[in-house]
């Protein structure tokens, strides 16, 4: 699977996980308008599950999970009724 050609914002979370990871997600998503996209890089082993759950709870969409050479990338799209 290829990387998206563009995202409206990038967020590199490195090894951050759990509460710190979702706090950074919330802050980044708050800065976007509905429909805009956020490309997240996250290496924490629990990141995939946490990001998917966070999207379900906050009204955002996890569009793609994109393996890269060193971790995972996640393409999120802000929902029209984002609760964050």
């Amino acid at each position, binding site marked *: 699977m290829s990387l998206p050609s563009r995202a409206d914002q990038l967020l590199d979370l490195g090894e951050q996980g*759990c509460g710190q990871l*979702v*706090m950074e997600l919330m802050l980044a998503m708050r800065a976007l308008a509905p429909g805009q996209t956020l490309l997240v890089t996250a290496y924490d082993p629990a990141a995939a599950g946490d990001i998917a759950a966070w999207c379900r709870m*906050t009204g955002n969409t996890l569009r793609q999970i994109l393996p890269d050479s060193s971790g995972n990338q996640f393409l999120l799209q802000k929902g029209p009724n984002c609760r*964050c």
Partner: protein
Amino acid sequence: MLNNFCVNLTRSTDDPDRATVAMVVANAAVASGKQTMVFLSSKGVRLAVKGVADQISEEGFQPMTTLLQNFLAAGGSVWVCSPCFKKRGYTEGDLIEGASIVGGAKLVEFLSNDGTGVSY
């Protein structure tokens, strides 16, 4: 899906690992759009006393002061058990900014109104 989320915390400097993990989970809840409240009871009330959070910084986690600041800035609430606080000789003047002293009825109302939670 339930909307009110309570993190009950009964420790502070006596168990910094447990106190830190509780605040990490509270941050996850508030950042996930939940109406999140940290209920400090028993020895946990010390966390709401000025200067105490500064003493907690666990390896692998953000310092407690950062966790608390982020939690409050994101819209979380810190409630402090009134009898637990008074029993230890503290007064409202000892409280950190953003924390409030409450009684049991407030906790029961919060949890009875579409609420759930975890306890540390």
